């Protein structure tokens, strides 16, 4: 089975987010990017499928932030090929535009299965995975917690619903799946392997095709939430605070 995994880089929230003077974008001076969490799981899911059923895994990313690092890591983890799409504008692409770019590239030689994270923390104008499926006219299921390939030509996914419920859905290939989590968390890749990948493997680069995207939503203003009603913070030693908590509970009739 030929699988393509789409990787996207999102802002690393370890730093305080600063808003650029323009007011409609993030200040990129100290901004670092990391691989979107559900894309990480999508890659893990793809590699699990490869381990179990054979096939090829291609990792593809738009050239933004530390995409190269993510692609080398993908190769170190076991991806057979990595593709970087260059020519992406500095401020990045919206999810709809990204889907269009991926769609144009994948249309040329469509794989059996396209996996991508179902969502990313910087989603605003959509979710790449679902939009891509819509543009390519491929069947799509998102929010999956496992993808298996019991037989040729189809995959069996488990779609998560609230309350621990899930639906098992059989999907004909070719298809797009939006992964929420892989059955097991992404395995650790030792640094030595990543460094070796950097030395011995190459990432193929190609220019991202220019695509026509309908006019999308526009950010008018980016802002940080004001903690409107913050909690009343208790004070004192742990013993004092414990007493205060019990007093509160008593006043509410929650403790006798």
């Amino acid at each position: 089975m030929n699988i393509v995994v789409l990787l996207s880089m999102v802002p690393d929230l370890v730093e305080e987010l600063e808003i650029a003077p323009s007011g409609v974008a993030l200040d990129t001076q100290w901004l670092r990017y990391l691989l979107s969490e559900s894309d990480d799981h999508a890659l893990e899911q793809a590699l699990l499928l490869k381990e179990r059923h054979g096939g090829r895994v291609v990792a593809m990313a738009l050239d933004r932030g530390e995409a190269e690092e993510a692609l080398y890591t993908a190769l170190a983890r076991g991806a057979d090929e990595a593709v970087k799409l260059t020519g992406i504008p500095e401020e990045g692409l919206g999810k709809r535009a990204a889907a269009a770019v991926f769609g144009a590239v994948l249309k040329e030689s469509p794989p059996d299965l396209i996996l991508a994270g179902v969502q990313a923390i910087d989603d605003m104008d959509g979710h790449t995975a679902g939009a891509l499926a819509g543009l390519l006219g491929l069947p799509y299921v998102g929010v999956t917690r496992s993808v298996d390939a019991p037989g040729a030509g189809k995959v069996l996914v488990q779609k998560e619903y609230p309350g621990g419920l899930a639906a098992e859905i059989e999907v004909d290939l070719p298809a797009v799946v939006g992964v929420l989590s892989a059955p097991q968390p992404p395995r650790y890749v030792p640094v030595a392997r990543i460094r070796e990948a950097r030395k011995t493997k190459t990432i193929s680069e190609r220019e991202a095709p220019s695509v026509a995207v309908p006019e999308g939503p526009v950010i008018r203003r980016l802002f940080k939430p004001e903690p409107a009603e913050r909690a009343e913070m208790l004070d004192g030693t742990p013993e004092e605070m414990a007493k205060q908590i019990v007093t509160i509970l008593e006043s509410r009739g929650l403790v006798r």
Partner: protein
Amino acid sequence: MSPSGLLLLWVVSLIALGLFAFRVRYLVRLLGLGRGESRLGEVWRRLAAVAWEVLGQRRLLREPAGVLHFGIFWGFVVYASAFVFSLLKGLLPFLPYPMPEEIGPVALALDVFGVTVLAGIGGAAVRRYILRPPRLEQSRDAGVILLLIGSLMVTSLLSSGFHVVATGHASFLWNPVGTPLAALLVGYDLTPSAASSLRMAMWWAHMALVLGFLAYLPYSKHLHLLASSFSVFLTDLSPRGRLRPADADGGGPDPLNARNFTWRELLNPFACAECGRCDRVCPAHTSGAALSPQKMVHHIKEHLLGAGPYLMKGDPRNGHYPDLVGGVVSADELWACTTCYACMERCPVMNEHIPLIVRMRRYLVTRGEVDARLQDALTATSRYGNSFGQSPKTRARWTAGLEVPVKDIRREQAQYLWFVGDYASLDPAAREATRAAARVLHRADVSFGILYDGEQTSGNDIRRVGEEGLFEMLAEKNIATMRKCRFDKILTTDPHTYNALKHEYPEFGGTWPVVHYTELFDSLIDGERLRPARRLGIRATYHDPCYLGRYNGIYEAPRRVLRALGANLVEMPRNRLNAYCCGAGGGRIWMEEAPGVKERPAESRIREAAALNGVGTLVVACPKEITMFRDAAKTTGHEEGLVIKDLAELVEEATNPEVSGHA
């Protein structure tokens, strides 16, 4: 001896020696599976090690039972020497010397050591079967040996007695045991000729037992008789704190096997005498975790003997023999180790447990088989340069609001580059100690600077967890950053950092001298650049950090400092070389709780400190210990009675003219 007797002797001797040689040759071939390693430099130091440890039995004598072994060992030396001459004379009667037992001084030695060894064996049997010390492997092998050696001594002493009866030469000088024994035997109406025959019988019995022992030796733990001299001679003379770099650690699809180890590493299990000293001092083992250093070494032997034959035939998958890692040795065992060095410090045959563990850990890391918390710590370190997952920009936040200036050594030069380290920088529990250290340095007019957000964790425990690639990356980066600065020496408050910078970084080109702050404070107080303004009249005890004490021999400097501050220092029973690890090292502070732990090492140590009469302060010299011991004090209910303080905080209190006295 009759011709048929001679023939029999030859036949038995050849068979026994043949079996022995055949087996030893096989074991050497197994060792040959291992990779090369050069251990022949500095011959004089090696001979000195043999002198102290093998001849002097130094490490053995650290436990009272060692006295028993001392006697048995020297008795063995005497008897073995006598045996060689005796056998040769027996096989080649025309040799121009008498039977050794017939030479006065030799007979004396044999008698004296015969009794000594019997006493030793007796004591050993009492210890093994009645006293039953913990972690002493009860094996049939051990029982057989005690019986065998006992029999050897008995036959020898009886022979001595019969000899006296047979020759009529009683001499308390040369046969101090044989003579009284003869007097006893005479009471049985023993004729000289009968005595002579019995003596011959004893001689034969003795020879047979020794030859039998010789043939049995390479199949038992008593192989240590042969292997231990080698293991001691071929000990690692490089600094304790230097792990050898990774090489051929099995990154491919084949499971880790004997071929990935060096021949010296494979020698360990053959040198092991199964004495259990390592287990007795191991904090992981005594706290209940899965690791037994003794068993772990034994597992290597199991693997070598089991999978060896297949490996020698070139089968990379060990036939159907279980995999070494994951089969014979479990991951839990490997991850439970804190790398505290107590096992290697104690081992009388100088076995090297930690390199074995690290090598197997490297294998697990290459497969990505690390627990979730450790994975987080490694990923965070790789990305942010610290295991906390915090932005590098927060690394120097501990300096915020500090009354004393802290230079940025990337921009200004200073005498000391203070390499602060992850925990000292970012752990809230350690913050005060770091700040106190800064104030003290300033007060003593020490010129220092820090790297601010240019500093990444030194990687000492990253290496010990088995993530070599990450360690290399950290070392390269840190060294590149430090090369651009101008300073004379590196200073640090963290012993792990100290160890890595001093012993691991030179390999990557970082060869600056490194000083631990306790050493510096000691010399500052000594040189009167730091003057206590008051005496801290506290009763305190000091915990020796593993990487400062056992690894790097720094025991007295912190104690001198404490005494200079006017503290009344009370030692815990386990101090200096015997200090008991707090449990944070080897990356354990990043991992899930080891399964099976009944009492965490830190809790045991807190109880030890709390049991000291009138001691209200536990002094530490490593930032990780602050959080480890404070947590343990809480969980053991000793929070009120025992305060955990870093040495820097005490120095600050004592030397600061303004601070009110230590409560």
